[in-house]
Structures are given as structure tokens and as C-alpha cells.
């Protein structure tokens, strides 16, 4: 089996690869080889990855359909801006605030809502997402519907890279553990899971809170790059955008969520001038995937070390 030393070696290998990737992109940005257009898309891609991987934890691994993920993104966005632009704190404080406050929102909404099942849960989360939007529209401190403009640009590649890797690592580590197995068992058969000694409500809330936290992180990163945020930005259509990624990638595959996020970002960029066509494509993706390939691109398989190992030894 995997010994600790074995893992340590693999871990160092992975760190090296990531460091190389980071440096490469940073170099491209600093020298200007990656121009503004690509930087915008890179930012969107990282934010989308964080959003889809975190939603996949709730919808895919825990099997609870949440349709209000954009609401947590909003909470994170607004919280971070309140701390940075309005209270003059450094970016890290803003990010931490975003994480903590959206996690809290996840808890407050999750505890009553996660007692519901299936479509009732989905509708309740949709409603809460909209309630968050309406509340933000009516708070004068953040300019209500007009939103906040002129947010300082603090989201840079190091932050994006760090946040994305953090999200992926935390969720992958969580899933590949006894806690992960417990979470998946909730999806597979809630009653059997309870009878195995697992407090299913607690684990649903756990997944929900962690998912909400990362959505908040994404929101904070978004706000400090795209410099404007309005309540309308985080409506249920945004939640559906994220849902499309998770469904396409495969409910229950982090790799799928990442691949789908990249694909959807590219699609959005290509179809920028045709928003209606993009939405029609999203609609078709949802319908066609659900009818013909409900497991999405990856099903619940992952591209893991094992797969890479097989590919590598295959080449040799």
C-alpha cells in the first residue's frame, strides 16, 4: 500500500510541476506575452474552476442539488470589498473575510434547508440565492442595485493560482479520506449511511459550508479583478452557469469539474458577442447531457496519479 515515504516523493513531484506551471504563466504575464484579453480569460477560468469544483462537492459528491451557489459568491464578493475598499484592509484580510462570512452564510442557510430532500432542497436553495440578491439590492451601505464601482484591482496571478490550487487540494484531500467516503455514502443511500453511524445532516452541512466558503473566495477574487459588482451579477442565471459546468463535467468528478470549467470559459470567450447563443448552448448541454450521458464527461472518475502513472509507464 501507499507508504508515507512513497507519498512524500509523489508530493514533491507534484509541487515541482505546479511551481513550474506557476512560473511559466507569471513569466508570460510579466513580459506581456499574455495580453489583457488572455489575462481576463485566465482570471475567469480560475474563478470558474473554483466555483465548479466547490459546487461539485455539494451537488456531485454529497448529492444535494444546490441552485443558489451564486448567492455565496455574492456574499464573498461584497464582504471582501467592504473590508478592502471601505475599511482599507489588505487583500488577504478581504479574502479571509469573504471565506469566513460566506461559510457562515452557508451554515445559516444550510442547517434549515438541508433537512429538505431532492427538488424541495433545490428550490429552497434557489430561493435563498435570490433572497441574498434582494437583500443586497436593498442595503444602502453597498449602493443597493447600483452596486459598488471602482474596486481596487488586487487579484493577480499569484492570488488566482494560490486560491485555485487551495480549493482543489482541500476538496480532493477531503474526498479521498474517511470523511470523503462518509460524504459520498450520503449521496449513495442516505438511510443506509445513517444506519452505519454517519450523521448525514452534519455531513451535508459540512459539504455545504465548505462549498459556500470557496464560492465566497471566488466572489472576492472576481470583485477585485472586474472592479464592479452588482446584486444582479449574482442572480440565479449565474447559479445555472455554474450548474452547467458541474453537470457537463460529471457530478462527482473534480477533474470533470475542472475540465468543464475550462471549456465553458473558452466557450464564453468565443461567444462573447452572442450571449443568446451561448445560453442556448448551455440549455442544450443541460438537456442533452441529462438525457444521453447523465454521468457527464468524466462520470465519477478522476484523472489521478494512478492514471498518470499508467500513461507514463505505458510510454516507457
Amino acid at each position, binding site marked *: 500500500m501507499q507508504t508515507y515515504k512513497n507519498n512524500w516523493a509523489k508530493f514533491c513531484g507534484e509541487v515541482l510541476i505546479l511551481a513550474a506551471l506557476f512560473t511559466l504563466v507569471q513569466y508570460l504575464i510579466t513580459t506581456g506575452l499574455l495580453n489583457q484579453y488572455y489575462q481576463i480569460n485566465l482570471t475567469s477560468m480560475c474563478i470558474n474552476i473554483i466555483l465548479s469544483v466547490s459546487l461539485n462537492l455539494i451537488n456531485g459528491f454529497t448529492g444535494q442539488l444546490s441552485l443558489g451557489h451564486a448567492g455565496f459568491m455574492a456574499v464573498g464578493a461584497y464582504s471582501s470589498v467592504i473590508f478592502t475598499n471601505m475599511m482599507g484592509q489588505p487583500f488577504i484580510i478581504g479574502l479571509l473575510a469573504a471565506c469566513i462570512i460566506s461559510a457562515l452564510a452557508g451554515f445559516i442557510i444550510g442547517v434549515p434547508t438541508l433537512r429538505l430532500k431532492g427538488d424541495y432542497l433545490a428550490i429552497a436553495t434557489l430561493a435563498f440565492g435570490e433572497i441574498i440578491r*434582494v437583500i443586497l439590492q436593498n442595503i444602502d451601505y453597498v449602493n443597493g442595485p447600483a452596486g459598488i464601482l471602482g474596486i481596487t484591482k488586487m487579484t493577480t496571478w499569484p492570488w488566482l493560482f494560490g486560491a485555485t490550487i487551495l480549493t482543489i487540494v482541500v476538496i480532493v484531500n477531503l474526498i479521498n479520506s474517511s470523511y470523503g467516503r462518509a460524504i459520498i455514502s450520503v449521496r449513495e443511500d442516505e438511510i443506509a449511511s445513517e444506519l452505519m453511524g454517519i450523521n448525514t445532516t452534519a455531513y451535508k452541512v459540512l459539504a455545504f459550508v465548505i462549498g459556500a466558503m470557496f464560492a465566497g473566495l471566488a466572489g472576492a477574487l472576481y470583485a477585485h479583478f472586474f472592479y464592479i459588482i452588482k446584486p444582479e451579477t449574482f442572480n440565479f442565471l449565474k447559479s445555472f452557469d455554474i450548474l452547467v459546468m458541474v453537470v457537463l463535467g460529471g457530478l462527482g468528478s473534480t477533474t470533470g469539474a475542472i475540465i468543464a470549467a475550462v471549456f465553458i470559459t473558452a466557450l464564453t470567450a468565443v461567444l462573447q458577442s452572442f450571449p443568446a447563443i451561448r445560453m442556448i448552448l448551455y440549455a442544450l448541454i443541460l438537456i442533452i447531457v441529462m438525457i444521453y450521458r447523465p454521468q457527464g464527461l468524466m462520470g465519477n472518475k478522476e484523472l489521478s496519479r494512478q492514471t498518470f502513472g499508467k500513461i507514463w509507464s505505458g510510454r516507457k
Partner: protein
Amino acid sequence: MLEFIQQMINGLSLGAIYALIALGYTMVYGIIKLINFAHGDIMMVGAFVGFFSLTLFGTNIIVAMVAAMLICAILGVLIEKVAYRPLRNSTRIAALITAIGVSLFLEYITIFLLGPSQRVFPESAFPIKAYNVAGLSILNKDVFVIVSAVVLMLILQYIIKWTKTGKAMRAVSLDQEAAVLMGISVDKTISITFAIGSALAAAAGVMYGVYYSTVNPLTGIIPGLKAFVAAVLGGIGIIPGAMAGGFIMGLLETMVSGYGNSLYRDAVAFGVLILILLIKPTGLFGKDTGEKV
């Protein structure tokens, strides 16, 4: 006092529209346990059909409504056949996600084909007249909406209670397998349910156009959501519940925007939904039967 009754009448008109849409949600949920996310958009299509009937073909309002009802009935049956029937044995979540897809599709294909802008229902289609009754100013459009809605609901009740089709619909909602064994064509019954529900939504769409004058491709979203809350409030799957829920939501909304803060008007629907789901998810008329393991 007069002001209050005036508001009540507005509330009833709005409620009538919600009730008609809510009926479609409740009938479909009752028969295949699906929240038809796209239902509000069918109302929008109905409104557009009504609009084009009035403007392009110069028909009167009744013909426009019938045309809308016919076309949307067909649309509803088509959607069921293409998007929902393949998922009849899948999880409810899968069907819900598909319904979201259908909803987005209807909205954005309309934007793609007809553009996103508002369409204004011609004043000439329904010239406003006000009747003075006991000091109240009752508009003819209020009368039209409320009376038409009641007529349609009575027709629906008749179909459900007294026709073979209605009996089949009730049977399939209660126990699909048993219904098949009784020789009932489940596919046909489900199609008819979608047809009727969609027709009612289309009627509501035309009324909406008459009442509020403007429609756009995204018009169906908010009223659709509110009608859905109405259906849940009354007890999803229960037809009298949808009617009651619709009128209650209409009255509630009018009261809130009339006497309270109109900014929170839309939030009322969400608030009501959360409250019902947490306190009594089976709704006002719903029965609390436990789940068998």
C-alpha cells in the same frame, strides 16, 4: 376602506393569473413528480402568441387567447415528449436539471429569434373601461381576467371530476403502475396533462399581456416563480390548492406593494416559499404521510 377593496380587486386579478399558472405546475407535479421549471416560460410563449395574433393578424382578444392556448398545448406536449419522457425512470434531480435546460432554451431561443425587447400589447385589443360600482372604480380588464380565470377553472374541475380523461389523470397521479394495469395509457394521460396545464398558462400569459401591457422573453420567470410558490403553498399536486394558493399570493403581493415596501415585493414570494418548505412542505391542503422505508 374603499382603497382596501380596490387593492383586493387588484389582488384577485393578479391572483387569478398566478392561479392559472400554478395549476399547470401542480398538475404536472401531481402526475410525474416533476417541477416543470419551464412552465413560466410557456406562459411567456402564450403571451407572445397572443401578441402576434393581435398585432399581425388583427384578431380580437378571445381568438388571441384561444390561439395561444392551442399553440402552447402543443408546445407542452412536445416538450414532455422530447425532454421529460426519456427521463421518466431517472432521478428527480436529473429531470429537474433538464427542466432548467428547457426553461433557458425557451427564453433564449425567443431572444434569438425575436430580440430581447419589450412588446407592447395594443390598447385597441382591449380598450380600458371603468365601471363605477358602489364608489369603486372597477376596470373591465379586472373583470375579464377574473371571470375568464374562473371559467377556465370551472372547466378544469369539470374535466377532472366528470370525464374519463380526468379520472385517468387522477389514477396516474396516485399509482402509475396500477393505472397501466387498469388499461390506462399513461403516456397519453401525461401528454394531456401537459397540454391542459400549458393551455392554462398560455391563457394566463395573454391576460398578463392585457393587464400589464408589456411582455418580453424573460417575462415568464418571475410570475412563473411566484405561481410555483402558490402551487407549493396550496399543496403541490393538489388542484384546489393551486387555485387557492394563486389567489393568496396575488392578494399578498398586492398588499405588500400597496401598503409596504414595493422593493421587497418580489422577495415576498421567496420568503413565503422558504416558510412553507420549513414549516409545512406539503402545503395548506397537503396531507402529512410519512415516507415508507
